[in-house]
């Protein structure tokens, strides 16, 4: 048996953004772990006044995406609009057996306006899976997912993964209005308890969310926080995580250009043991340690 030479893909990120040898040697010929490929639209339906649910057929590399990872989409161009760069889009769901991935997106700009025009059978250029997703410790019995707005879509794949591990999930979901709440059904199908708070009902303020989270901690329902979509709610969880010595992970959104660690456009500052460290959201994240993340 011959020993294959190491490839660059044998190297991976470590916590300091530098490179360490972590994977086993992979044999040639070259096998990509990230692809840019044409996917075919299965469906692209409005789920409420602001959000669309997009399902595409893709190859096995893309369909193997993990919770918290993202794709970078080359959005169709509408007349008079010129999105140039790809758009990062968090993963809403996967079905590796059917070779499908799903996105849930809010129409906000020229890229997502283009996405909203896609019809069944259309082609969409997807690049991924990208980034480092959620690390779900199978030893946890109870976790809490806290999300707001589009962040609820990013948290969605956690529900399935937690159920596979036998981990009980309580979700605290926030939105401007009840009709703009997404992901609730998906979490409930996976056996999660969903607590909904909204601006319209004046239940979404940080004080009320903190009260809810304190109750969950007291009831033994929270061994870790998973969050996305709100700096305000992240700060509430950071305080509670410190007070009760709980771990947590946060998925971050940031404007990107390349999506794969080349351009250093999407950097943010993190507090690592008192030192401010600059990290690429696309490469070192988009999921980061809750307590290291600065608002």
């Amino acid at each position, binding site marked *: 048996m011959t020993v294959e*030479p190491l490839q660059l*893909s044998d190297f991976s990120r470590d916590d300091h953004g530098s490179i360490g040898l972590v994977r086993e040697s992979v044999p040639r010929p070259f096998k990509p772990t*990230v692809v840019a490929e044409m996917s075919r639209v299965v469906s692209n339906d409005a789920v409420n006044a602001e959000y669309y649910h997009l399902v595409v057929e893709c190859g096995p590399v893309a369909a193997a995406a993990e919770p918290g990872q993202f794709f970078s989409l080359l959005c169709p161009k509408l007349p008079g609009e010129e999105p*140039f760069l790809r758009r990062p889009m968090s993963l809403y769901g996967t079905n590796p057996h059917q070779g499908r991935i799903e996105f849930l997106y809010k129409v906000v700009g020229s890229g997502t306006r283009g996405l909203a025009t896609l019809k069944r059978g259309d082609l969409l250029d997807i*690049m991924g899976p990208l980034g480092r997703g959620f690390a779900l410790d199978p030893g946890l019995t109870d976790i809490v997912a806290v999300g707001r707005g589009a962040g609820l879509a990013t948290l969605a794949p956690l529900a399935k993964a937690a159920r596979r591990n036998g981990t009980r999930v309580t979700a605290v979901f926030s939105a401007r209005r009840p009709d703009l709440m997404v992901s609730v059904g998906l979490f409930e199908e996976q056996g999660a308890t969903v607590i909904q708070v909204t601006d319209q009902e004046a239940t979404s303020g940080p004080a009320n969310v903190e009260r809810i989270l304190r109750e969950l901690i007291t009831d033994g329902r929270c061994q870790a926080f998973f969050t996305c979509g709100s700096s305000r709610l992240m700060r509430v969880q950071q305080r509670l995580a410190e007070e009760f010595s709980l771990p947590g992970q946060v998925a971050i959104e940031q404007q990107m250009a390349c999506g794969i660690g080349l351009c*250093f456009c999407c950097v943010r500052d993190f507090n690592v043991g008192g030192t401010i460290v600059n990290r690429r959201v696309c490469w070192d994240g988009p999921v980061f340690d809750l307590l290291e993340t600065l608002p």
Partner: protein
Amino acid sequence: MKLETDIDMSVKIGELTLKNPIMPASGTFAEGLSQVMDFDRLGAIVTKTVTREVRAGNPTPRVVERPNSMINAIGIPSKGVAHFVEKIIPLYAHLSTPLVVSISAPTADGFACLARDLSLPGVAAIEANISCPNIEEDGKAFAMNADSTATVTRALRAATDLPLWIKLTPNTGDMPAVARAGEAEGADALVVANTILSMAIDLKTFKPSLGNVMGGLSGPAVKPIVLRQVFQCANAVDIPIIGCGGISSAEDVIEYMLAGARAVQVGTATFLQPNIMPRIIEDLQAFCYHRQINRASALTGALLIEEADESDLSWLDPQ
């Protein structure tokens, strides 16, 4: 010539032979791309610019998109030379593709010392980034004029025996003079060119779209401008020109080579299609095959310019 693979794709940049003319532009390449493509297929690898000191880079936002282009103001974040030698150079040691190290410094002496310290086993050439528009006020850089280009190139030449490439700026008014200054002081090749100094304003906030206010324009929109500059430089000097500006297809590469480029760098296009470089290599090979061109290097400078005689211009003045 029976097969596409019989075509000689290699090109010579001074003493350095590349297996094909396609390489990444500095700042658009990192280890992450190894998830998408086989680095051994590239003509060369060009690293992100390294500085001696640790640099944080510019405040965000660092990028804004414009039609067929983007403006960046990254500001050369760098983990410093020690990290580069210890962590980055070894990453590429096992490849057959030569490693070109891009460097930057605030002074000619700084450039020279850094080039000397990075003239190490595993480094095939030094690319001196004397043209980044984002690190000095108002886009000032050595390559803005011939005198400062001569000064920094002379210092670099004395400091290293490695092939020395200097990367020029498109923002100067007299590109051929700058190119000649680089050649006269011993540069082995010219990279033409860096990004075009530019700006964008957000009408919602009345603020600049970039944290650094100004930035560098890149992407397909800049190609006609830089193509012209490659043509001018190729006419001004005898050393090889490496074209860089808006390349996103083999057709673009062929245009650059016809205008006088010996090789090219692909940058922004990789952000849109991460595997564009291997695709361009295949397409370039297919083009040569179909046009019965045995060597890709034969394209360099093969532009045909004929004096138009008066009868050709008759359509301008229909009687």
